[in-house]
């Protein structure tokens, strides 16, 4: 175990993939572990990535892959006495993990903001939508309520809520799902944040509303030039939104690269599995989907070696049982494209082109 840990600890130096100079957000070897009664939960276990201004990073993974905890870690919101956090989070040249909590608080909502999955539970049921937006604005701006209210109306209008001067006094439960998510976005963007983290922003919404919301986020990003992290389980959504992609499994990053590359030449069996599991409207109907066997791992008992090995159909290809004993590191498989798999480049290329791609 100690050898493994050492190997994992050595990761950041070797795996800083892009030069962090132009990155607005740089996360290095982020680890978030929770002490629970059942044991140590390694929700995030050594994740590194960068996001540039104006770019979108998509983080995909199944439930329990650590994708949401990662974003909460960046925001400094993983508040729990039992959480142990290590690694570095650089936001616009400022390190956040070691910073004073109050310092990070002042950045939250102003420099970095977040949109949550379920806008009904994420907005306070007792306060009007306008009140909540005004509050978000006035934390970071010393302005009168009247000015802030004007700003709230303006934002509601900007996100496409009809009659914003009336709806500003409405309560969240009076809004439809789509309108509520728009209001949530208005609240997040009221301070022109430079980093926007959207955690499953459209999962609770219908497809037609999802299309509206994604369109809105895209437009707003264009307008404000902010960096966006889009966390989702829906490969369709990331394909549409993301410039870069981070695939997470069992609290770790298994593949990372430009979205187009990850979709056209994925180099990790888990990514193949995700692509094979989903029925697609843009392809001929297939008779059968190709699911990944088994279930996602428990984060208390992450399988040793490659966390994916119990579900991987190719786990026996690398020699000496290495998939079950040694944790694979991210290695460069193409320009800016990284994957953590024990199979050789050639093996993976062959399997992808011969076995996987034709079936998709």
């Amino acid at each position, binding site marked *: 175990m100690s050898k493994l840990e050492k190997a994992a600890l050595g990761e950041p130096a070797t795996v800083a993939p892009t030069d962090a100079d132009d990155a607005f957000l740089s996360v290095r070897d982020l680890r978030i572990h929770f002490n629970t009664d059942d044991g140590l939960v390694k929700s995030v276990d050594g994740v590194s990535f960068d996001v540039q201004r104006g770019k979108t990073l998509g983080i995909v993974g199944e439930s329990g892959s650590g994708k949401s905890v990662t974003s909460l870690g960046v925001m400094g919101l993983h508040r729990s006495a039992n959480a142990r956090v290590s690694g570095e989070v650089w936001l616009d040249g400022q390190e956040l993990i070691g910073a004073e909590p109050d310092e990070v608080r002042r950045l939250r909502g102003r420099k970095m*903001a977040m949109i*949550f999955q379920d806008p009904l539970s994420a907005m*306070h*049921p*007792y306060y009007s939508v306008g009140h909540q937006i005004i509050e*978000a604005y006035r934390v970071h701006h010393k302005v009168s309520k009247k000015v802030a209210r004007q700003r709230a109306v303006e934002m509601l209008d900007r996100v496409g809520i009809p009659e914003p001067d009336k709806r500003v006094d409405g309560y969240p439960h009076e809004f439809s799902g789509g309108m509520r998510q728009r209001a949530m976005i208005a*609240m997040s963007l009221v301070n022109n944040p430079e980093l926007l983290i959207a955690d499953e922003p459209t999962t609770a919404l219908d497809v037609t509303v999802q299309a509206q919301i994604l369109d809105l986020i895209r437009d707003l990003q264009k307008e404000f030039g902010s960096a966006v992290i889009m966390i989702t389980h829906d490969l369709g959504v990331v394909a549409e939104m993301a410039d870069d992609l981070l695939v997470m499994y069992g609290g770790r990053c298994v593949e990372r690269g430009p979205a187009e590359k990850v979709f056209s030449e994925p180099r990790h069996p888990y990514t193949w599995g995700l692509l094979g599991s989903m029925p697609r409207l843009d392809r001929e109907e297939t008779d059968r989907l190709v699911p990944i066997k088994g279930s996602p791992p428990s984060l208390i008992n992450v399988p040793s070696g490659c966390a994916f090995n119990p579900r991987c159909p190719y786990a026996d290809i690398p020699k000496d049982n290495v998939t079950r004993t040694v944790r694979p590191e991210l290695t460069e498989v193409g320009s800016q494209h990284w994957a953590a798999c024990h199979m050789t480049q050639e093996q993976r290329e062959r399997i992808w082109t011969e076995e996987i791609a034709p079936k998709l």
Partner: protein
Amino acid sequence: MAGTDNPVPATGSRTAVAAYIIRRVFGALVLLLVVSAVTFAIFFLVPRLGGQTATQLATQYVGKDANPESVAAIKRNLGFDQPIYIQYWDYLKGLFVGADYKFGPDATHCAAPCFGYSFKSHVEVWPQLTERIPVSFSLAVGAAVIWLIFGVTTGVISALRKGKPVDRIAMFIALAGVSLPIFFTGQVINALFVYQWPIWDSTDYVPFTQNPADWAWHLLLPWISLAFLFSALYARLTRAGMLETMGEDYIRTARAKGLKETTVVTKHGLRAALTPIVTIFGMDFGTLIGTAVLTETVFSLQGIGAYSIQAIKDNDLPIVMGVTLVAAFFIVFCNLIVDLVYAAIDPRVRYS
């Protein structure tokens, strides 16, 4: 399209609130009527069903030296010879327009609201009650202020420091507070501060209108002993509520906005956690006015709780009935207030 996705048009909300209030007030009135009917039935109908004759009933209303004439007078005056609904109707009428009671040559006019006349102690019920309600009310109000402040604060601190020593100690004291009966804590406080170290020379009731300072000072000990019990209960309630709300998504949103932790806790967390507490508080407070028997007894306060015990002992039915109605009134009234406050706190309640 703009209008159709708005489920509650702005103009409708005010009428909705008005309708809500009217519905609740109406409901409260109906409830009071039902309570009075049920109470009346219990005191006047049930004994009859149990086989007592009107004469026997009337005898109970006369003091020890009952002679046939006075019994007959009471029987007539109280309408025991009338059907039960007429009796109830007369009683209700008395509440609003007053009634006349005659025995022998004397006639007593009992002005509205007439809660009846006690033939045992030869007094009208209502003046007796009005004399005692302020005592009970003062006791309840002061105690409530103390227990709300202490209970809620302790609960919030406990919830935020869950598992830490502060939490454990607070919850231990709370457990003690819930477990210790009020006559015990009351007696101990009495023994310590009135007899052992006589900081209080008197705990007699002084009306607020007469001397507010004395009023508060004299009631402080009863307040504290009563509040001790309730603080403990409310600390536990608040703690549970806070633990739940602080895990809500909107708390995370509030933090994500960059709000200070104190704002997050008080404005976003506590407000939501207090909603169920408001409900329970309304009931507790309403109930307490008529039932703080133990505290009133321990500190010799002439409140309606103690009065009702005395009346029960004496089998003085008109007084028991009056006390019951007054107690019921406070409970119903406080619940009505709670409903209205609830609507003010939680906008979702207004339209349902």
